C-alpha cells in the first residue's frame, strides 16, 4: 500500500497494488499515475453521471472462493446506452471485473489473448470487425457474438490497471455461451485485451456493503 498526497489537491490517496498504477483522486477527480516512487497527474476524470447501480467502491463479496472488494470503476457508453465495469481486487492480490449491464452481472478475469486460437477471434485481434451472431469457439466451448460496437469511456473512479480518460474509445465485443459463460474483447488500435468469465448474481457473490438507495430495502445477500 502506497499512501501519498494528491499533487493537485493535497488529499491523501492510496495505491494498493503496483499492478494497479492508475487512480482517480476521490476529491478533485484528478487522474494520477504511479511511476516508480513518483506520482504524476495526467488529466481530469469526468464526473460520473447519476445511476442507481447497487454497487459502490467498498462493496465486498466472494467468488470462486476468493473474497473481493470493489476498488474502481469505468463507465462505458455506446450509441444505445451505457454500462459499468467495476474493478474487483481479490484477497490474493489478483483482480477482475464485475460488469453490470441491463441489471445483469458478469464476473470476468483477464486472460492471455494467445489462449484463443479461433480464426474469428484472430481476425478480430487483427483489427477486423465482426457481426452479431457470429459463432466461434473458446476453449472448445461454443460462443456467439452478442454485441460488437465502439464504446467510449464516460467516466472513471477509484483504482484502475490503466488510465481511463473520458472520451477514450475502444472496440468492444461480447461473447456469450449457452451455459452462461461470457467473454469479452476490448481493442484499442492494435492492442487487444481478453476477458473470460460468467454470469453471476449478487446473491451468489454474497455481496455486502451494497450502496443504499432511497426507498429500497438493501437485501442481505451476504447473510
Amino acid at each position, binding site marked *: 500500500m502506497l499512501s501519498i498526497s494528491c499533487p493537485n489537491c493535497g488529499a491523501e490517496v492510496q495505491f494498493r497494488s503496483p499492478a494497479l498504477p492508475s487512480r482517480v483522486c476521490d476529491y478533485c477527480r484528478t487522474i494520477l499515475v504511479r511511476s516508480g516512487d513518483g506520482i504524476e497527474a495526467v488529466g481530469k476524470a469526468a464526473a460520473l*453521471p*447519476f*445511476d*442507481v*447501480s*447497487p454497487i*459502490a467502491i*467498498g*462493496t*465486498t463479496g466472494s467468488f470462486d472462493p476468493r*473474497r*473481493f*472488494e470493489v*476498488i474502481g470503476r469505468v463507465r462505458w*457508453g455506446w*450509441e*444505445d*446506452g*451505457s454500462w*459499468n465495469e467495476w474493478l*474487483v*481486487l*481479490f*484477497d490474493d*492480490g489478483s483482480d477482475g471485473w464485475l460488469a453490470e449491464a*441491463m*441489471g*445483469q452481472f458478469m464476473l470476468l478475469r483477464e486472460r492471455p489473448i494467445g489462449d484463443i486460437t479461433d480464426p474469428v477471434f484472430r481476425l478480430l485481434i487483427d483489427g477486423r470487425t465482426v457481426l*452479431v*451472431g457470429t459463432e466461434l469457439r473458446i476453449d472448445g466451448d461454443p460462443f456467439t457474438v*452478442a454485441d460488437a460496437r465502439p464504446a467510449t469511456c464516460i467516466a472513471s473512479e477509484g483504482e484502475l490497471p490503466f488510465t481511463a480518460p473520458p472520451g477514450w474509445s475502444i472496440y468492444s465485443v461480447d461473447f456469450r455461451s*449457452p*451455459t*452462461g459463460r461470457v467473454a469479452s474483447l476490448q481493442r484499442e488500435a492494435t492492442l487487444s485485451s481478453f476477458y473470460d468469465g460468467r*454470469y453471476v448474481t*449478487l446473491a451468489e457473490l454474497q455481496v*455486502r*456493503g*451494497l*450502496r*443504499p*438507495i*432511497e*426507498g*429500497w*430495502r*438493501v*437485501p442481505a445477500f451476504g447473510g
Partner: protein
Amino acid sequence: MATEAPPAPAAFPAPAPAVKALSCPSCGGTIELRAAGYTVTVACLYCGSLLDVANPDVRLITEYHEAAAELEIPLGTRGTLDGVEWEAIGYLRRSEGGSYPWEEYLLFNPYHAYRWLISNGRGWSFGEQLTRTPDWAHGLSLDGQRYEAFFADGVAQVDYVLGEFYWRVKAGEEVKTDDYVRPGWMLSREANEQEVSWSLSRWLEPKEIKAAFGVEPPRRSWPPLPHQPSPYRPALKRRAMLALAAVGFLILLALLFGGGSTLLRAELPIALDGVQRTATLGPVTVGRAYQMVAIEAEVPRLDNAWVDLDYSLVDRATQASWNAYDAAERYSGRDSDGAWSEGSRSATVKLAAVPAGTYDLVVDYQGNRWGGGSSGAEPESVRLEVRTGTVFFSNFLLAAILILLPLIFVIFRHMSFESARKGESDFAPVAEDDEED
C-alpha cells in the same frame, strides 16, 4: 488486502436518491427516471413522446401529443412477488400484427434488476430474462425440466409504449417468437437479426397478482393460458389415490369375507319330457352367522330346450326354507344370417343371507323341449354345485363405480381443461380431427 477492511456502513453517509428528474422537451412535464443509468428510452407519461436518455442531454426521438393510456397498474406502483419488492417502470402493449393483444409491464428493483409482468386479459405471468440457453438434448429442457412446443413462428410487434426501458424500444418494432410450456411455466424465445433472447415466466395465481399489485382477477379466464396448470391436477392425484385405496380395501373385504368354498356337488338325471322330478340333497352345512349361498346348475348338451329349477334350502332344525327359482335354457339354429344361438347351458342363483345351520337342498326340476328347433343330442343330467361366500360381483362392481365416480368426474374436468388449453396451441391436433370428420 480486500479482506482486511470490512466495509464500514459509514462509507455511505446518505442513501443515493432513487430517482432522477428530467423535464420532457416536448410537453415540459417532469419525468422521474427510476432506473437511471440503465434506462435508454422513455415514453413521457404525459404526452407519450419518445425520449432518448442514453446520454446526459435528453433528446426527443418522436414527438406525440396524446394523453397517456390509463393502465391497470399505474407506472410507479410497487408490489411484492417472490419476496422482493418491484416497481412498475415501463409498459408495452404488444400483438401479433394487431391480433391477440397482450400487455407487458417492466418491473425494476435496483438490487434485483428487471422482471416482467405479462397479461393477455385472461391471467398474469411473472417473467425473467435468462442468461443461459435451454438444452435441445431431449426435446427442449431447462434445469432438467422438459417443455413442450406451444406457439411457433410468431411475429410480435410493439403497439404502444409508456415509461422507461433499457433498450431502444419503439412502436412497430418486431421480433420472432416461439413459446414452450410445462404446467406453471413458459419458456419464450424472442429473436431479431441482432440477438436471440430467452425468458422464463411463471403463471401467477389470481390471488398472487391481486396481493402484489391489487389487480382484480380477469373477468374472462377461458380458455386457460398455455402454461396455466390444470386446477384439477391435484384433485386428480388425490382422488386417484383415494379410489385406489378404496378399491383395494374392497378387494381385501371380498377376499376376507367372500372367500367361497364348495358345499355340495351332485348330478341329477334328466330327460326332456316335461315331467317334474324332485331330488333332496344334503346336508349343506354353513358356519358363519349369515352368508351368501350360490347354486349353480349346468346341463351339458342342452340345446333347443330348457330346464326349470326350483330350489328350497330347508333348515333341518327349524324347517325354515329359503327358496329360489332358476332356469337353464339354450336355443340355436340357422337362418339367412347363418348359425345362431342364445341362452346358456348353465344358470346360477344366489341366496343372499342364509343363517348358520344344516340344510337340505330340495330341487324340483323339469326338462322341456322347444318345438321350434331341431333336436340333436339329448342332455342326460343336471350338474349342481352349491357354494358359499361368493360376494355378488354386481355389488362389487356397483361399489367400485360409486368409488370411481368422483375420480371420473375430475378426469373429465381435467381433460376438458387440458383440451381447451392445448386448443390454443400451434401444435394442437386440429388437422387430424378434421381428417377424421
